């Protein structure tokens, strides 16, 4: 299940990065996309990969 979770985190990260770049001229959308990225940093931190068997 953790593999699925990590995969989903990566998908959301791609979307949030794209959202951020699409909204270069819109402070509100860009800032909210950055906040999503903040939580993705934490999500990655709490779903660590510990070795090859878990990749």
């Amino acid at each position, binding site marked *: 299940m953790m593999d699925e979770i990590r995969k989903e985190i990566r998908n959301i990260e791609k979307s949030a990065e794209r959202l951020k770049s699409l909204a270069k001229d819109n402070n509100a959308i860009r800032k909210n996309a950055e906040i999503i990225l903040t939580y993705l940093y934490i999500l990655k931190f709490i779903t*660590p990969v510990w070795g090859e068997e878990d990749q």
Partner: protein
Amino acid sequence: MEYWNPYTETLPREKLENIEFSYFKNMFSYAKTHSALYRDKLKGIEADDIRTVHDISKIPFTYKEELRAYQEIEPHPYGGLLGVNIQDVTTFRQTSGTTGKPVYVPETYESWQWRIESWCHILYMAGFRPRHRVFLPFGYNVYVAFWEAHYASEKVGCELVPGGALDTRGRVNKIIEIRANAMMNTPTYGLHIAEEAMNMGIDPKSLGIERMLCAGEPMPEATRRKLEDLYGCETYDHIGGTEVCGWAGMCKVKKGLHIIEPFFLVEILDRETLTKEVGEGEQGVVVITPLGRRSFPFIRFNTNDVVVKGHSNCSCGRTSKMIMEVVGRADDLRKIRGVLFSPKTIEQLIREEFTDIVEYEIVVERKGIMDEITLRIETTPKLGKDDVENLTKRLKERSKVKTNLTCKVKVEPQGALPRYDLKAKRFKDMREVK
């Protein structure tokens, strides 16, 4: 659900340690490239030199004095401690300044949320749930633990009620008015609220507090149990610091504190040489590396906190390393007449055996060539003259047994000793006052 994060909280030790080692190397590289302090301090050591967990011990400690020195350079006020662009800082924090000039702590939105995530473990372990209406009886000011508690309560799903700008009676009334059923406070202030409630003719048990989390001071087991008895509630402890965040909390088993892994790499090193990890049941100094906080990176910070190391097989199922007891700060341990003295021993004694003492203070003075300890005490008003004399005699005897030192006892009138909202200062070493 029993755990805040069942995945990380129950990982086998070996896996947790591998993750922490990998995170440590990442944080080492980050600090070296983003912080002026570590650009200087880690010159000549590369991440590739850290091949095994044993290599970590070759990396120098970071001391609070260095933090103070490096914050003097630009950009003001964080100086060389900053790990990010100053424009990314969203919150200012600072240490209380108990031991000298405060250290200013920069938080970005990311680093603050990282701290809050760590704190959620502490709250969840202590049984805080969305059904709790949590009263925080303080104006938090610089006391970061209560800011962390505030935001972590929200994240866990509790309802948080800030209780600043009220006096203690006002807070008792507020707890009743809103029917708060949980509270976070210093142990000292928890006792004081109970005392004030009783002065108002209110039994603290009737306040309806079912859960209490303490912060800010080392809490002897006797004080924790006293709070449980007074309020009829479950009382939990945790440990943390402004620089490092809350880094260990108590689970429902209430036998020691779980280190929040893999958020922190915590080393507990022998007090004499600071080179060896101590064994279970031994005292050691805590050295911490926060593993994901980038705004204010630091590596192997010597906290000066002395703890007793525990095991890592708690019956709650968490696999984290544990500490069995917080002894206090190394600075609080003093040599008096050649004997190592911990003020916490006196607190433990008073809370456990002298429940008629409502407040106390320990004063150490040098009289000629001799050090003298005086225990200033306030008793409950109900005691008669003979009771007070007996209590005084018994306290002299028991303190001698517990500390191996002779203590004078001075009985003070009601209200003569200060009461504290936040960090209590009950230990006064006048030998240091020039």
